[in-house]
């Protein structure tokens, strides 16, 4: 059974993960003068902040599906409810398991994309999130990001989060 998969939990958690990432971009407080201190937490910053986009896209898809099925009285409010419904109707793309962390698949499941074609800033930010972020970053042993790239990626994450967030209308 999934934990913390309710739409309100996802909406509340998303900005917190972004804030966690912003904090990790700051100069470390421990061993601040040691070699590599400047880049020590940058992968962690991007990794944790990226969950803001995953969470808010999931929240959007839940809200979208709940609205579409309102006439059936289903009340889809959790990611697990959504997966069950999508399986029943044979919906594509498959969002089960690790696919639920795939930002491109989440975007394909959402009806957000018409707006993307008209806003290059947002479409660039979304593209950057999709290119850079994946859960496997948690296993990355190297300082893959320099400060500029980490900062740019977090900015793209924030742009994407804000853009999706204002489009959620949840009951």
């Amino acid at each position, binding site marked *: 059974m999934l934990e913390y998969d309710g739409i309100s939990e996802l909406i509340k958690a998303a900005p917190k993960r972004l804030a966690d990432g912003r904090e990790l971009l700051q100069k470390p407080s421990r061993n601040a003068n040691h070699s590599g201190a400047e880049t020590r937490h940058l992968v962690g910053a991007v990794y944790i902040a990226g969950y803001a986009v995953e969470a808010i896209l999931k929240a959007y898809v839940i809200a979208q599906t709940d609205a579409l099925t309102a006439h059936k009285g289903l009340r889809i409010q959790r990611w697990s409810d959504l997966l069950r419904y999508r399986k029943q109707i044979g919906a*594509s793309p498959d969002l089960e398991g690790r696919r639920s962390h795939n930002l*491109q698949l989440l*975007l*394909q*499941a*959402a*009806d*957000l*994309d*018409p707006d*993307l*074609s008209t806003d*290059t*800033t947002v*479409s*660039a*930010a*979304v*593209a*950057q999130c*999709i*290119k850079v972020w994946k859960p496997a970053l948690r296993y990355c042993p190297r300082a893959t990001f320099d400060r500029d790239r980490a900062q740019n990626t977090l900015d*793209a994450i924030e742009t994407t989060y804000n853009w999706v967030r204002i489009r959620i209308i949840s009951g």
Partner: protein
Amino acid sequence: MASQTTSFAHIKPEIERVLEESFGPGAAVSVEQGYAGRAHVKIVTPKLNGLTEEQKQQLVWDALRRGLGEDAQLVAFVLPYGMDEL
């Protein structure tokens, strides 16, 4: 649903043709179905090397709008890569 599938089936080869004409035969183009039959486009080409993400978006969207005209609205999302990103 049928019209969405028809739209995607119609637009997919057109997108591939337009992008190959714009970026050359060396461009790798992938077109997948997004929400409601709209197209999500992935392109990899050295002609996008060294550009910012916004510049990449602009170049590809400009090519799509020039080549597809009104049908460009059937394209919903573009994911452009330079070879230097791989």
